[in-house]
């Protein structure tokens, strides 16, 4: 009993140190940001535009790619196919790639000479230095979060429920939209929020694709490299606060939906 207690205290101490490591730099940044500088940054039109661009482009990228990523996640959860492990490895690849390298790879694909770049040029869009290009860079590095979380969500839906729906006359499409998707919704939303947040914070891949228009991480870097730490700090604080507000809002929305569903595992396993 005494041994356990000491062990628990050691774990609490170690956990506190890890937590402190995350919170201390953020707290330091907040403390060292003067009120006047912060208020000035809030009024700065360039900062506004940059934060807004980051938010909407990341959100749009997440929303757009979820149209393909969510059914893909269902496929990975439900179907067996010969190269499944290989495909799973490809999905996780953007997580381990250096993000600047990902940006370089993507640039070759979306520049005017690249496959997608040619198609975009045909439609009159130059993806480089364009919000669409930024969205692609954000999606490239953050897609694994949505796919993996959604896949786990679909895998947790008991197959019996899908079989029962088929037996009651539902087509496979109906089963997906009326049973699988609503029951995996919780995990999909979690994946959505994670992809959105990861896309929003992306710097390496985006800076290769588009220095301008500037998303918030690029703006912060630009202010730091041109004017120093004191100029970069208020913009960072503002961006963190806005991002936090957005994330909390999304979380609350998903929590409201969560309450409507129950955990089916106990009943059906």
């Amino acid at each position, binding site marked *: 009993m005494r041994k356990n207690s000491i062990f628990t205290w050691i774990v609490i101490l170690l956990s506190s140190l890890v937590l402190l490591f995350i919170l201390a730099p953020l707290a330091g940044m907040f403390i060292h940001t003067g009120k006047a500088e912060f208020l000035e940054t809030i009024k700065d039109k360039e900062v506004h535009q940059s934060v807004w661009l980051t938010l909407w482009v990341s959100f749009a990228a997440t929303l757009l790619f979820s149209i393909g990523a969510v059914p893909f996640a269902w496929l990975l959860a439900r179907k067996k196919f010969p190269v499944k492990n290989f495909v799973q490895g490809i999905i996780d690849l953007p997580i381990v790639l250096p993000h600047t390298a990902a940006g370089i790879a993507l640039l070759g694909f979306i520049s005017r000479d690249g496959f997608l770049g040619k198609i975009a040029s045909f439609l009159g869009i130059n993806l480089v230095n364009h919000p669409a290009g930024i969205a692609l860079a954000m999606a490239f590095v953050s897609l694994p979060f949505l796919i993996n979380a959604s896949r786990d969500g679909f895998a947790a839906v*008991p197959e*019996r*429920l899908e*079989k*029962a*729906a*088929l*037996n*009651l*006359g*539902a*087509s496979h499409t*109906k089963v997906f939209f*009326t*049973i699988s998707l*609503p*029951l995996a919704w919780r995990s999909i939303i979690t994946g959505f929020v994670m992809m959105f947040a990861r896309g929003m914070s992306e710097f390496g891949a985006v800076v290769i694709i588009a220095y301008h228009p500037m998303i918030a991480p690029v703006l912060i870097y630009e202010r730091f490299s041109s004017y120093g730490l004191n100029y970069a700090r208020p913009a960072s604080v503002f961006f963190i606060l806005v991002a936090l507000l957005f994330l909390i809002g999304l979380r609350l929305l998903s929590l409201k939906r969560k309450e*409507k*569903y*129950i*955990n*089916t595992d106990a*009943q*059906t*396993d």
Partner: protein
Amino acid sequence: MLRLINISRKLGDFALKDINLEVSDGQYYVLLGRSGSGKTQLLELIAGLGHPDTGKIILDNEDITKRRIQDRRVGIVFQDYAVFPHMTVFGNIAYPLKLRNEPKKSIAEKVEKAANAMNINHILERNPEKLSGGELQRVALARTLITSPRLLLLDESLSSLDTSLKDDLKRLLRNLNKSGQTIIHVTHDYGDAISLAKRVGVIHNGRIIQDGSVDEVFNNPANRFVARYAGIRNFFKVNIVHENGLSFGVTEHNIRFKLNGVSAENNSLLLVKSDAITISNQEHEGKDLNTIKGKVSEIIPSEFGLEVTIDAGDLFFVNISASDRQKLCLAEGNRVWVNFNQKDIVVINGT
């Protein structure tokens, strides 16, 4: 009428083999088998949740072997009910009707009718998480029956219910069958089979090893496995000897069974039902009576009263009442005789 013709299906290491079965209209057919025997896989093939590698499934003279699950009109109720947790009871029962785009008014009327029949009209607005096992089972039944299935398949539908709920649901299923609904019910519970089935099949290792009326199957089990299902615990492997014009089955421990007029071969299995055996403190005489001396090794409570184990070299298991025990002054260690008529011996040849 449902006919399964030479159905085989391989599933990993397990296979359903040469399943042939006929279930007539209005039948209550119970397929009895242990877990892993293939009974659920067979139900899923009939429902269309899988397809056999070989063989045909004929329903009402139509070959439905390759027909889409949605077009078969075969309803299945799963062991775990599979009630949709994100819908209310109403939503669950209305689900198949909504798929057919029926008008709202018609859906409401049909759901109410189905709920009334299952006695669940008071819980229509509830979420499944708040329902008991019995209620969930009724919701699953109502949801399936609202599709007017030609055939109702029940997968271990009573196994997770307590005794009182089980009895209620059995009554409901019997009434449903009386109203003309053809039912195939798979279970591992011999009691369910006895109380519900008009006809019973026993499935083991992917094969139906016996099929017939309840009496036929349980009074003349085809092998040891079926006999165990019939509650028979007294098995004796014997060799046949003939002395003075009489036949005897002799066990490894030299217990002799009179087998006059019974056709038996060497290595036959003799079965004696526990309730066909009586215990006495004295030896009884009788032309057709087997009387074997042994020692009471254990007396334990059982669902029939008391189960007495008598060691006569081989073990005999006998059911008696508490008053029988008093009359016989029965205690562990007593010397007693077990008595049973030779007509109560069932012989399974070629084991």
